[in-house]
């Protein structure tokens, strides 16, 4: 499957509490299969998938060119004891699937912690993230309401999806949305003139920070 015949290598990473279904989610996405058995991930792992991506043309309504994208989807262990290892891998990912379990209030509460982990360890302070509430099929065990989760996602300004790795609902959509965000980010990063840092994108706070940091480090 892996040869160099693709246009982009995009690295995404799934994170969240242990048992929220990161591995099954990715398994569903890459292989379209579901494994109900709980096998805890040892440290890190990754899966790959080749997808076609059609870029929306910025200056027209017609769809732009189609690209071959090779996705490297990093799967991280949710368990605390692997934490130092997994967070170290955050910095090499271009986008994040922050997952929680809709049937576990605690996993939802921990989203906040994961967000701060991301801020500290990801490649920049406002990386592209998609919030994913998994196990949507278990309606009778549901502990987190959609409204609640939506509010939190809005607070962070990130998209929110309720997925089910068991049925496959919304799984593709969540990943594709994230891919879309990353692809847009790439264009922005390259096109923004390097001389003018305050270029109208929402990250004014960010733009001010790096120069200071650099001075400290030197």
């Amino acid at each position, binding site marked *: 499957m892996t040869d*160099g015949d693709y246009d*982009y290598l995009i690295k995404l990473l799934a994170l969240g509490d242990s048992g929220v279904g990161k591995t099954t989610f990715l398994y569903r996405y890459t292989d379209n299969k579901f494994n109900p058995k709980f096998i805890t991930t040892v440290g890190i792992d*990754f899966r790959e998938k080749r997808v076609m991506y059609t870029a929306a043309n910025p*200056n027209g309504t017609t769809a732009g060119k189609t690209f071959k994208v090779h996705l490297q989807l990093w799967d991280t262990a949710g368990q605390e004891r692997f934490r130092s290892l997994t967070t*170290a891998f955050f910095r090499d990912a271009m986008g994040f699937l922050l997952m929680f379990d809709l049937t576990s209030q605690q996993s939802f509460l921990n989203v906040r912690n994961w967000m701060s982990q991301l801020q500290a360890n990801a*490649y920049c302070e406002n990386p592209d993230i998609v919030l994913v509430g998994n196990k949507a099929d278990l309606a009778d065990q549901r502990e987190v309401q959609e409204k609640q989760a939506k509010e939190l996602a809005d607070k962070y300004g990130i998209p929110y999806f309720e997925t089910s790795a068991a049925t496959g609902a919304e799984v593709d959509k969540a990943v594709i949305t994230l891919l879309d965000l990353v692809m847009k980010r*790439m264009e922005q990063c390259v096109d923004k003139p390097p001389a003018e840092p305050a270029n109208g994108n929402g990250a004014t706070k960010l733009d001010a920070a790096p120069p200071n*940091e650099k001075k400290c480090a030197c």
Partner: protein
Amino acid sequence: MIKDSHFKMDLSLLQAMERERVLEVLRRDKQLRTIEEDRIKRMRYELQDLRRKGAKSFARQYGERTCARCQRPLGKFWNSGAVCCGCSHRICRKCRVGLGATAWKCTVCHAYRDVKIRSGEWFMEEKAKKFPATADKYETVGEKLLKTYNVLSHIAVVPPTPPPHLDYQFLSRSGDLKSSKPFAKSMENLMLSLTSHIKKISTSQNDVREDLLRVENSRRGSCFTFTTQKSLSDTDINKSSNLFKGPSLPNLFKRSKDSDHEGYSTGAEEETSFGSEYSGGNRGSISSISTDCGLFEGVTVAGELQLALAYNTKSSCLEITVGACRNLINGDHKRNKCHPYVKLYVLPEKSSKMKTTVKKNTTDPVYNEVLQYYIEHHLLVGKRLQASVWHSGTLKRKVFLGEVLVPLDGLGFKNKASQCFNWYPLCPKTESPEGGTMEQDGEVVRPKFSSINQGELLQLSSLKYLQERETRLSVRHII
């Protein structure tokens, strides 16, 4: 504030089985990265090609009003072209790529932008902004981790690095300078200073180029009023040097950064650098391109290499007989072709490159070539012979087909086994530090063994280069 402090994770906390599992994942990741690196290399090669086509040829005067890309003449009022915001060149209407409603870039600047996105360079740059403390921005966490573990497990195998002066002993021995002692001595000293200078020169090539540019600019200024353009191109150089850092494979690309400098940015720079590049002959830039194209596509390595090693005490040289190879994989998958040759290094020396001839259209080449390496017998301790098989493709593209590492310690009088032909199975690229740096080092000035004339030629050409550089610098002073 955000430093590597949290990068203290290691795998020591994990159980042995868990560790093996993680390392397995990292190895898989490494495979993917290798493919990615090859892809990026190919992409950059194409970009370089495009730039080269766009470069003003030196038959044409720069002052002439032509499009910097297609070289078509531009009119004074009609079809007068416009300045590209990326490279500050005057570009005709046909060589522009629209970005938005009004924004555009010239074809080369657009291709450059495209490569930056597709190679993931944008990501590296963003990451480097947040983690400036990280020594190598191209290195991923997985790579780092894998490396530390590889080093740990290899530590017993890696021989100690011998003191650097050994290198020059070989040099003087390889030449026929023995005849006159004082001459040999002075040559030895010269070589010493030369080799130490070469490194500096190759790193300071950019400076030289900037100097050249100024020379060129002032020369041009006399026939063409150019003050504004000059400042533009000067800033552009700075910009391009900031922007243009190689993509993820850290080591292999160090050289290509240099060559990128000359390929990209202003026409004046292109002009001068290409001129000197061609006249300079055996220089870093050329060789870096050719080594850059040495693709490690051989993730799958197959076949065997037949070698015989012997130490000749009379002439005090190591005689390596390359017999043959068998069952190699095709270097050129598409055309099902293979033109293999064998390259030898005596590790950890980097100065010891030896090559066989290239055999055409065969995966079972027969060489039967004896390559000699002058070395005192006792110095063989701790050294290893690296024999790698390469496919010599079109346009100097090289494809790695596999390699063999043979320890040279016990070689000599007693070891009869290695003196007759042995078949060694080819292995994928090893990750030993020496092996890694071998390819990127280019062939700047590297005395070859077994052929004395060649060695002398190389010394001469490097001398010539030094002289050239000096004259250029002095030209600048005069102006």
